[in-house]
């Protein structure tokens, strides 16, 4: 365990920022936290979590895949990628840290998504333990311990000190880089904080959320449940839940005509949208009920069925606080609970 006085936090950021791009949560104009590239004067946000998740850094909302340049009747194909720079993501919470492993299962499975892979390889994740979880948090349901977050480096902030622990070679390298500023020690302080945090976690209203019966076994039963109609009734079909979700990974590929060519890019898509997976014959999911069902079946049933029981949710609670009509995965899970019992 290494430690650093918070007074020197800016020196640490400056040190890292010198060699790599450093991103950390700072407060935006509306007072919510968002990742920004560090520059002098930026301070780490005190918010529990960012509105947008950390997946942006590996799977950005829009990404240029290929360019076509047209000159008269000839077409030139251009790979727009430049060399990926190394970057450090500071202050990732345990839930988001888990989301990367879920995304990896999608993007690093064969055929490997090289755009994603390159970013994963060049990114170092520095997590930060939670101390004040909120009522919307339910990461513990998925076996995540926000007091002991994963990542290349785990951090804790207690009183006036930042404690850091490297978990991987990438983490070691980062701490080596920062070594001039760090000193040893802090195990006791961290353990004390963890104990305090865990006592709060036990009191969270959603700590006991049960996902029994979800997963592949009850797929058809859940698929055919008549609860979906009622659950999806209020859904307005926007993409808020999917876009703030750290694990949603669907995208669309679009062409943009630039006037002298075409820029082919991919962008996040939402299964809640009426034109999601629209094909030549139309949309396979005809109503919002089916689109709504798709999203939750995917996270709670299909994904675990294909991934050894791992759910496609990390319990970050973003959709709970951001859904315009206050519908969310917890309400769905609770409603479906009865169906499988």
């Amino acid at each position, binding site marked *: 365990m290494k430690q650093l006085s918070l007074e020197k936090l800016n020196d640490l950021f400056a040190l890292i920022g010198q060699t790599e791009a450093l991103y950390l949560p700072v407060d935006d*104009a*509306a007072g919510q936290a968002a990742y920004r590239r560090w520059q002098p004067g930026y301070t780490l946000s005190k918010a529990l979590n960012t509105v*947008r998740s950390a997946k942006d850094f590996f799977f950005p909302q829009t990404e240029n895949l290929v360019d076509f340049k047209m000159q008269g009747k000839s077409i030139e194909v251009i790979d727009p990628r430049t060399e990926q720079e190394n970057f450090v993501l500071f202050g990732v919470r345990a839930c988001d840290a888990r989301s990367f492993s879920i995304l990896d299962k999608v993007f690093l499975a064969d055929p490997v998504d090289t755009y994603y892979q390159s970013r994963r390889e060049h990114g170092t994740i520095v997590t930060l333990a939670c101390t004040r979880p909120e*009522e919307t948090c339910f990461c513990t349901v998925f076996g995540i311990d926000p007091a002991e977050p994963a990542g290349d480096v785990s951090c804790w902030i207690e009183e006036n000190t930042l404690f850091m622990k490297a978990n991987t070679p990438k983490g070691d390298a980062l701490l080596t880089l920062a070594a001039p500023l760090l000193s040893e020690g802090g195990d006791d302080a961290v353990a004390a904080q963890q104990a305090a945090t865990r006592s709060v976690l036990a009191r969270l209203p*959603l700590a006991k959320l049960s996902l029994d019966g979800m997963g592949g076994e009850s797929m058809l039963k859940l698929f055919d449940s008549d609860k979906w109609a009622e659950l999806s009734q209020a859904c307005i079909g926007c993409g808020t839940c999917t876009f703030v979700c750290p694990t949603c990974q669907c995208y669309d590929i679009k062409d943009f005509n630039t006037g002298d060519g075409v820029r082919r890019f991919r962008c996040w898509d*939402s299964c809640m949208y009426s034109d999601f997976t629209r094909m030549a014959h139309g949309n396979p999911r005809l109503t919002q009920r089916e689109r709504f069902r798709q999203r939750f079946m995917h996270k709670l049933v299909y994904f675990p069925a294909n991934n050894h029981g791992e759910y496609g949710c990390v319990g970050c609670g973003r959709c709970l606080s951001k859904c315009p*009509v206050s519908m969310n995965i917890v309400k769905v899970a609770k409603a479906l609970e009865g169906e499988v019992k």
Partner: protein
Amino acid sequence: MQEMMIAKARELLKSGAVQRVLGWKAGEFAYDVEPAVFESAQELEKSFVYNDFCGSNLSKYLIAQSRKEGKTLVFLKPCDTYSFSQLLAEHRIVRENVYAIGIPCQGKTDGETLKGKGFTGILSAQCEGDTFTVHTLYGDKTAARADVLPERCLNCKSKKHMIYDELLGEDGEVLDSHRFDMVEKLEKMTPDERFAFWRGELSRCIRCNACRNVCPACTCEKCVFDNDASGIAQKAAADSFEENMFHIIRAFHVAGRCTDCGECSRVCPQNIPLHLLNRKFIKDINELYGAYQAGEDPDAKSPLTDYTMNDAEPGIVYHRGGNQ
């Protein structure tokens, strides 16, 4: 009020006067109330609520509900009635299939506003008189009611119901609000300051479409931004231009039709003050073409489908604002 509403709904369901009730349903926490349709007295008893978190505007749901067989009972707050009336004027709702009950409103807050005011770990919340008590994981906290209301309710334009079949409680008055203050403040800035302001706001947009999908004026069967044939379809703002484009065109499409219900800003996950764009149009319309409030008079010609021979010339824009 909640009891009265349940009793009324139960009575109308029982008599067969209505087949379903559109209202609000309690959630997991105090604040996550969701719009819901109730078809039986049991459902009403179980989860119908009307409290300080019933901010969502139900009128847009009537587009679908009123096309169902039978009648739908809907509870409408004063500001929701403007949307309802406007939707009727646009023939989007089958009036015969709706039984509208006007209900009073003292302003509605929501979880995001409470959190913005520093309440975290909210377990439950009550309001007595003018004091809000919030029980949180980290202890109980109180606040004055006015301090936890969102901007749209602090600048409420009207407590009067524009249209209803029946009214529960007293009808209120159209209010003198300060809703254009912020627009005015922006108008007084230099263009550079305004540009910086809006870039700061709009650059946060994640194009989740929540503003559009919740908006009672955005009821297109197919939005131009979802229609590849329109030539301006976008699924994400791949460039800052597209952020501007989306919000300008959206505001323009609802100009003269937006009732200023404020749902767009309420639902924006990034807290972008989108209502300011709509209010800018409303303010301009009021100043240039005479006071007009969408949803107030269903027979009034909306300002963009109307004209007078002596309308201001577009050049008037060069002479207005604080940027001479």
